[in-house]
């Protein structure tokens, strides 16, 4: 008999659940305490541990499940009606989560104990309206980017921002060019291939990846048909959040999730993988590079042996993100509308940029690692001022969004390592550690000469790799263009993801200078550009690792999209700042 502390780490629709689980005796389970697996990474009897379980399905169980999900497609609502009902239900869940007595809320309280993230961090994310907002998806799926996007930024009708497409080398050779007028008006995407069966793989480093995959897959309903079967293999490291929300959705509107299942199964079960991938029209994998390589290796074997179109594969592997702080921030300085606040604009930007590194404690691909600060001729000490403000804001944030239960040792190793680099032979090296040993973060100002450390991919890669667990390096650049030219170009294109920016002036749109900069970053592999403070809240309507929502429905030449998620960067930044401050003001202390 299971202990009362065991949580369901899976989700099956009600009808299927009954037939698959009745009388079941074989379960698998994982026990975690503070993000560490009991008996492996910490003692087996660690206090406060949470156990999650999921069924171990037999071949017959899988048949029942897959047939049940397929049959449910026929009964589910279709097209825009489905999507409208889903948005309404999610809105209700968001409100319900705000109620401390709701059952879903009680389940969510197990997430910190299991994953190690602080309760305040989880609560803050749950309270962010952005994560429940699906309003823009219909517009995103109606976009019609043309080949001109390979040469120029294109507007996104109905959405703020711009879009650009960077074809892979092979696609360039094949002649995907938007520079020739005869080609530039041609669409980038082919005819719709609405998926009927989507298989997902969700990583466990940040909560909710499986849910994002489910929502993306269900958004294909907007093309007019029935919702696809969505089967997601969840991570043992975070199997709680997505099933909780799916359960709440079922309670709100049962038909919405009747085609969805979230389970944990063995990647190495070749027969099962072959069976599932053989049915799939689309595979979305958010996982480590090694797992993605394994899945990718299995997909062609499936597709080659059938008459069905080749399975579309959307991999989301290891990525890193950065921030760019423009010189305008320092030049506007105290003349902005924020001048009455402590530290003015620089402090506000440092707070927002700090959030991008603080959320998920840099365990997420979207967490900013290095903050590049553009030097200002008007303010010589701009990088130092920014780094000091950042340290101050991270100290404040550590109280409202405490760091998770990760070993302090890793943080202190970084502190020690960079402290040792401050001087050589009695002279300053240009590197300063601006945090204290006991701070739950590390801020390093690295003003070593350009090219020091040498423009060596391995050395720069090591700097990037150090920035995990709330370790932020502030690196001055003379011009923002140095960022793509001297730094991002050192990293593999496939490893880059988001860039958070603090640029522009009040009321200013996207300047030529900024678009050139964004284009250079996109060419290096950056796939999403948003304002500081929004790093942890990417919008599904924009590029996720170079893939647009349209990629869920259609094929296009190989390459990646880069999206800019705003029209007026300064104004979007200020809006984000005000929203965050308001939200913090409404959050009861201790949340």
């Amino acid at each position, binding site marked *: 008999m299971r202990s009362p502390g065991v949580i369901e780490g899976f989700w099956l629709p009600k009808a299927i659940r009954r037939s698959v689980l009745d009388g079941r005796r074989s379960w698998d389970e994982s026990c975690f305490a503070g993000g560490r697996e009991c008996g492996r990474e910490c003692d087996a009897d660690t206090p406060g541990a949470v156990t999650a379980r999921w069924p171990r399905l037999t071949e017959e169980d899988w048949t029942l499940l897959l047939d049940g999900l397929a049959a449910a497609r026929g009964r589910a609502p279709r097209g825009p009606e489905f999507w409208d009902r889903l948005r309404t239900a999610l809105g209700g869940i968001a409100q319900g989560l705000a109620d401390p007595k709701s059952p879903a809320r009680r389940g969510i309280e197990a997430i910190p104990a299991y994953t190690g993230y602080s309760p305040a961090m989880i609560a803050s994310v749950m309270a962010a309206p952005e994560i429940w907002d699906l309003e823009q998806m219909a517009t995103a799926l109606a976009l019609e980017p043309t080949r001109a996007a390979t040469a120029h930024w294109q507007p996104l009708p109905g959405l703020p921002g711009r879009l650009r497409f960077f074809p892979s080398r092979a696609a360039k050779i094949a002649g995907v060019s938007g520079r020739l007028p005869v080609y530039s008006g041609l669409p980038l995407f082919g005819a719709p291939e609405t998926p009927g069966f989507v298989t997902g793989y969700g990583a466990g*480093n940040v909560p909710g990846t499986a849910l994002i995959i489910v929502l993306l897959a269900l958004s294909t309903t907007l093309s007019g048909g029935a919702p696809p079967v969505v089967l997601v293999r969840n991570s043992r490291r975070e199997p709680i959040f997505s099933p909780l929300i799916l359960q709440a959705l079922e309670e709100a509107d049962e038909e919405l999730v009747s085609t969805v299942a979230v389970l944990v199964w063995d990647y190495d079960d070749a027969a099962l993988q072959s069976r599932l991938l053989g049915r799939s029209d689309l595979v979305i994998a958010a996982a480590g590079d090694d797992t993605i390589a394994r899945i990718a290796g299995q997909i062609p074997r499936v597709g080659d042996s059938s008459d069905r179109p080749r399975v579309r594969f959307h991999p989301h592997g290891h*990525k890193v993100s950065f921030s760019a702080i423009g010189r305008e921030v320092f030049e506007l300085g105290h003349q902005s509308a924020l001048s009455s606040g402590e530290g003015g604009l620089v402090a506000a930007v440092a707070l927002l940029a700090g959030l991008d590194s603080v959320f998920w404690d840099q365990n997420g691909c979207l967490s900013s690692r290095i903050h590049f600060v553009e030097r200002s001729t008007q303010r010589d000490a701009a990088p130092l001022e920014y780094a000091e403000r950042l340290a101050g804001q991270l100290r404040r944030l550590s109280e409202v969004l405490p760091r998770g239960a990760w070993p302090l040792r890793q943080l202190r190793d970084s*502190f020690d390592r960079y402290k*040792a*680099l401050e001087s050589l032979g009695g002279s300053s090296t240009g590197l300063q550690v601006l945090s204290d*040993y006991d701070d739950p973060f590390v801020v390093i100002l690295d003003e070593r000469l350009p090219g*020091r*450390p040498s423009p060596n991919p391995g050395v720069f890669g090591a700097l990037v790799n150090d920035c995990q667990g709330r370790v932020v390096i502030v690196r001055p650049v003379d011009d923002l263009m140095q960022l793509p030219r001297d730094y991002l170009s050192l990293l593999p294109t496939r490893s880059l993801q988001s860039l958070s920016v603090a640029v522009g002036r009040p009321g200013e749109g996207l300047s030529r200078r900024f678009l050139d900069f964004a284009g250079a970053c996109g060419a290096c592999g950056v796939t999403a550009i948003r304002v500081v403070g929004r790093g942890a809240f990417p919008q599904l309507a924009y590029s996720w690792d170079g893939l647009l929502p349209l990629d869920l429905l259609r094929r296009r030449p190989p390459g990646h999209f880069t999206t800019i998620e705003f029209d007026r960067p300064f104004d979007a930044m200020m809006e984000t700042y005000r929203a965050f401050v308001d939200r913090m003001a409404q959050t009861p202390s201790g949340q």
Partner: protein
Amino acid sequence: MEHGALSTETLSDFWSLTEPERDQTVLQGIRATHSWHYARNTAYRNAVAARGVGPRAESGDLPRLLRPTSQTFKSYIDLLGTPFPQDEPRGFGEWLADQLSVDLPRDRLRGLRSSYRSLEALLQAIEHAFSDLDLELLTSSGTSGRATIIARDRRSTDLNVESFYLSFQRYLGMKADHRAIFMMPRRTRIAMARMARFSVQRVGLTPDRVHFAIPFPAHPDQVRIRAGRAFRLGRRGLVERRVWHPAINAIQARYVDPRAIRVALTRLDRAAREGEKVLLFGSLTQLHGVALALVRAGRTIPLAPGSLLGTGGGMKEAYAFSPHEIRRDLERVFPSADGSALPLRDTYGMAEANWAAMQCSAGNYHVPPWVHAVTLDDDGELRSGSRATGLLAFFDPFGSGDLFPGFFRTADRVTLVGGREDTICPCGDAGAYLEKNSIQRVDLLGEAGCAAQV
């Protein structure tokens, strides 16, 4: 107590101290050693001052005195921006001077060339420049491609030799009547190899009773290229990767290893014929190479009672056989002449430590009593209890010499037992020990999902 009050003769006295006396002496030694190095060692002072520790350390400061072995003597890489200090000789010299508690005349660094063709050439040049200080520069095994580089002077070498010698005697039962065969080159900068060699000589073995099976020197550059984990940039790196790496490995596999095995077997056969006690020392895989040669030949070598098989260095590379299988093969081919099992003893140590924990007859690794070993939790705080599992850290106030304080936190998770009263090792020797089979290298990266390393 003043730092340096104990000379090499007094390390052995620690075995005769009572527990309270030992604890008090070691704690006083830690404080004195801290103050002494704090005043003289720039890198150490910077590190601990940043953690809020001043020139006088209190008991509560102990965890803050520990520097990580994974960083301390590799920090030149971050400072110079390259793992190849031969490209930045003067910067490397400045780094080295900052690491040491002796006054290294920095003006001599100006005499260094702007670059050297190899790390070995650079290390020789620095040793030559400071020859009056009797400095020798040693390295870790270097298989990661990023070598720990550590300095020793005459006093620290003497202390190190004394430390190893005492442990060899006490835990391995070695005396001057052994013949020592090392599966390693005579000329190497690998710290552990050098110290093992010096220590058996200190036991009393005359040079004609100490043999090295590998007849070629092993320079750090060769070790790096052979390991294949780090190559120079540009054309030179391409040549290293495409030419030297496969060539060195081919030579090693086809010529050096077989010859080392032949030399070892010749020495072992002779010792067996003459009834001499033998110490055969090398890595587990090297000893296994000898064992496999005997298996293939269908023969055994019955060694004289009192002979020993010694291993060190752990398993640094993927190997087709497990340690258990290797031990089984060694037991099979080296039966003791009197029918008793031939002892196979492992040694746990590292370049940064001037001591080694040697495996006793019960299989546990004994920490010398002048070393204060502790385990740390994930936050770097001291774990308490007579048996605790955590990251191993140690304070060696008496045995580490004058160049840097021997206060380090390792990257190895161990179970440390106090070895007092009800936790005394089954071998009967009192004092702290690392439980057998408990030592494991900690992988600091968890499952990272979409984040992680580039």
